[in-house]
Structure formats: structure tokens, C-alpha cells
């Protein structure tokens, strides 16, 4: 019993520390003051100017948000397709080839972002590819796909290979068998791979920083970095972050409550 109380207190304490900065941002999004930690009375004006674009560099912030979402969406879609096809291939490979491709697949996961960023930067410089949207998306595909491969591979090992053979024996074309048998079995892995990729791409800073070139392409991370180095943060970032956090909180809690309900019923 004492052990349980201690455990509860410990968990609560760590959670309070983990959430303190987020709560801090959220609280100070409801005041007019420009800088964090400066309270000048309750106000919704930052929310208003976020949505009506009343701030100085509103278009820059909005395009940074759009870029972040668009890059994450495209990169994780490509990564999901590439990674799923690759996982099917790797599953059917044997020996050295399999080991080699799995080793290469692990490298982007072990490498810190800065190494991935610098190495890809050198690649694009070496090949004289001008950097911008395309290079950022390629770079994001590079660090996302390994996670898709690792999410899909276990689904293949768990699958009964006879089902696929049976579909072929019963007259399905390989294409039909792929669509009707393989895809449904693999889809949970593909979905979790996609979600992982999407979140990693959203949160990325270092890789984007090195591969975005000099055309002024900003994602949310690079925007915040540039902003902070200039001195003052764009105050509308506070309400923006608060809104993003609340959306994620609701979605994740809803998903998990549903999941635990399901497992309770089972």
C-alpha cells in the first residue's frame, strides 16, 4: 500500500515537471503581453490575431504551418508506400542481402538528426541539386521509411503464408490476392508506420534545417528557431501551440480510451 502511494506521488511529480512548460505556454497565451512570462490581464487578443492574421509576420507563420503539414503528409505517404513494398521484399529475401538491407535500414534510426541532415546536405551539394521542398521531402522520407519497414515486417511474420497461396489457388490474380489478402493483413502496421512517420516529420528540426536550402522555406521548427535567435518570439505562437496541444491531447486520449475499452471487452 505504501509502495503504491509512493509510486503514485512519483509519477505525478514527473508528470507535473514534464507538463510545466506546456501549461506555461497555454496560460500565457491568454494574455496580451508579447513575451512569455509577462501577464497583463486576461485577453483573447492573441487568438484573434492568430486567426485574423493581424500580426506582423502572419503570412510567414501561416505558410510555415502549411509547409509543416504538407511536408509531413507527403513524406509519410511516400514512406508508407516505399516502406511497405520494401518490407514485403525484405521478408522474402534471405541471407546476406537481407542482412545488408536491414543494416542500412537501421542507420537513419541510429544516426542523430544532425548527421542525417549534414550527410544529405553534402549529397545534394555533391549532385548539384538545388535545395527546397523536394530535398526536404526526400530527406524526411529517408528518416521515416525505416520506421514503416519495422512496423510492417512483424505483420508479415505473423501472417499465415498459406492464405495468400490459397487465394492464388482459388483463381485470384496476384494483384487481387495482394489487394484482398496482403493489404488487410498489413494495414495495421502500415497505419502505425504512417502515424510514426507523420509525427517524426512534424517534429523534425535539424534535418529540415540542413536540407531546405536558401529559398526561404520555413517549417514551424525552423520558423521558431529563426524567431528565437532574432530575439522576440512571435507572440501568436503561444495560442497556436496551445491549440495544437489540445487537438493532440483529445485525439490521443480518445484513441486510447477506445482501445482500452476494446481490450476490456475481450
Amino acid at each position, binding site marked *: 500500500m505504501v509502495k503504491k502511494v509512493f509510486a503514485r506521488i512519483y509519477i505525478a511529480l514527473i508528470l507535473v515537471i*514534464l507538463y510545466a512548460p*506546456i501549461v506555461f*505556454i497555454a496560460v500565457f497565451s491568454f494574455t496580451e503581453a508579447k513575451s*512569455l512570462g509577462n501577464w497583463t490581464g486576461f485577453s483573447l487578443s492573441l487568438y484573434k490575431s492568430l486567426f485574423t492574421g493581424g500580426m506582423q509576420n502572419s503570412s510567414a507563420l501561416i505558410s510555415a504551418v502549411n509547409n509543416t503539414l504538407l511536408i509531413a503528409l507527403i513524406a509519410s505517404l511516400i514512406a508508407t508506400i516505399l516502406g511497405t513494398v520494401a518490407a514485403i521484399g525484405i521478408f522474402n529475401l534471405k541471407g546476406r542481402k537481407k542482412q545488408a538491407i536491414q543494416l542500412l535500414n537501421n542507420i*537513419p534510426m*541510429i544516426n542523430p538528426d*544532425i548527421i542525417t541532415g549534414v550527410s544529405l546536405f553534402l549529397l545534394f551539394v555533391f549532385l548539384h541539386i538545388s535545395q527546397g521542398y523536394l530535398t526536404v521531402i526526400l530527406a524526411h522520407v*529517408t528518416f521515416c521509411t525505416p520506421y514503416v519497414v519495422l512496423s510492417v515486417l512483424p505483420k508479415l511474420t505473423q501472417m499465415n503464408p498459406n492464405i495468400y497461396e490459397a487465394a492464388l489457388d482459388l483463381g485470384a490474380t496476384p494483384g487481387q490476392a495482394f489487394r484482398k489478402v496482403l493489404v488487410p493483413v498489413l494495414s495495421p502496421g502500415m497505419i502505425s508506420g504512417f502515424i510514426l512517420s507523420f509525427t517524426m516529420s512534424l517534429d523534425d528540426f535539424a534535418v529540415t534545417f540542413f536540407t531546405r536550402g536558401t529559398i526561404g522555406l520555413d517549417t514551424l521548427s525552423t520558423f521558431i528557431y529563426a524567431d528565437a535567435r532574432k530575439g522576440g518570439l512571435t507572440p501568436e505562437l503561444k495560442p497556436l*501551440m496551445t491549440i*495544437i496541444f489540445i487537438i493532440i491531447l483529445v485525439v490521443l486520449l480518445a484513441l486510447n480510451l477506445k482501445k482500452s475499452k476494446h481490450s476490456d471487452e475481450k
Partner: protein
Amino acid sequence: MGKRSSWALPYAIFLVLFVAVPLLLIVLYSFQDASGHFTFANMAKFFTDRDALSTFALSIEVAIENTALCILIGYPVAYILADKSLNRSAVTVVLFILPMWVNALMRTLATAELFTMAGIPLGKGTLLFGMCYDYLPFMIYPIYTTLAKMDRSYADAAADLGASPFTVFRKVTLPLSMPGIASGVLMVFMPTVSTFAISEFLTNNKIKLFGTIIQENINNSMWNYGAALSLIMLIIIGLTSFLGKKEDVEAAGGAV
């Protein structure tokens, strides 16, 4: 599904082009001067550059301290979360991962601001705290998954055979959770050495870590020296992941 092995081909080509070749380019650029001639000058520059060497040493020191701190704080969290008698809710686990979805730079800036408000000067102490704050979930999660998968009957058996709770932990639970600790270390140690923005924000640019020097050199078009510094980091990654693997094998061996 016999011929499906060829499906790996597009990704194999992709991996060679975007993973293998870029890493080889780091090596190539490290040993070239600005006009493309072979040279050892970049490497020599690092080993004779006081500032770079002391930054490097400081980065390794901070990374070791941060990793240790993450294990000390994170292991009990993972242990409690994985213990069915202490925690039955999957939501608590999600709560520990959730902060990672909020932009890391923004969280770091807010952390730094909190310190300033509390009157704590930004420096090495705040750097360590902030680093630990940023990387703690990466330590908790792998340890949690290993502990959750662990067969509790080993621990029960040890207790039945008369081991004290502490002995059970030291001789059974801890060795069995080594793979989780090893992958946690892998996910915390190198990223700490290489962060650049986070360390700048948390110390108000007073303390530079190795990642910052790499970034400064690349951004100032000193690609060759930047590549050489990256190569040094790559060598360390190779070493730590090799050590991590070895621990993995030993832990697995200990389990059998």
C-alpha cells in the same frame, strides 16, 4: 510469394543513394580541402583546436550526465508503469509520450523562460535539466516495453526461493531489462552530443555543444571541416552502438 523478394529493390536503391552514399560523402569531404584535393588538414585542425576539443569533451560529459540522469529518473517511471499492481491504465503511458508531440524547440524556450522567471541563471545546470526533460521519454519508453514484456514469473520464482526484494531487482529484473536500457542509452546519448538549438536556448548561447560547431561550420560554408567533425561523431556512434549491441547480447545471454 516466391518472387516478391525483388520488391526490396526500389528501397535498396533508395537506401544506397540516400543513406550509404551521403555517409561516404562525409568521409570524402573530411579528407578534402575546399578545392577538392586530398588532405589531412581538417582532421589535424580538430585535434589542434583547443576550443573544438574542449567543446567536444564538454559535450561528451553533458551527454554522459544526461544519460545517467535519464536512467535514474526514467527507470522508476518505467518500472511503475509496467507493474500491473501499481498502474493499470494505458492512458498514463500515453501521458508520458504526449509532450513529445509539442514542438521541442517551443517547449525548450518555455523551459528556459520558466528558469528565468524563477531567478535561476541559465548555465550548465539548466542545460542538464532541460536536456533531461527533452530526452526522458526516449529513455522511459524502451525500458517500459522491455519490462512490460518481461515474464514476471522469474521474479516471483526468485522471491519464492528466498531472495529479498532488492536482490530480486538486482539479480533478475535489472538484468532482464538491460536491452531496454541499452536502446534508451542509444536514443539519448548521441542526440545529446549533437543537439544544437536546444543547448543554445537553454544557456542563452553561453555553452556550445558539439552539434553547434558542426552547424556553424556547415552554415558558414566550411563544409570540409564540418564534414570532418561529423565524421568524428559518426565514429563515436559506431562505438556506442557496438557497445550497446554487446550489452544486448550479454543481457540476452544472462536471461537464458
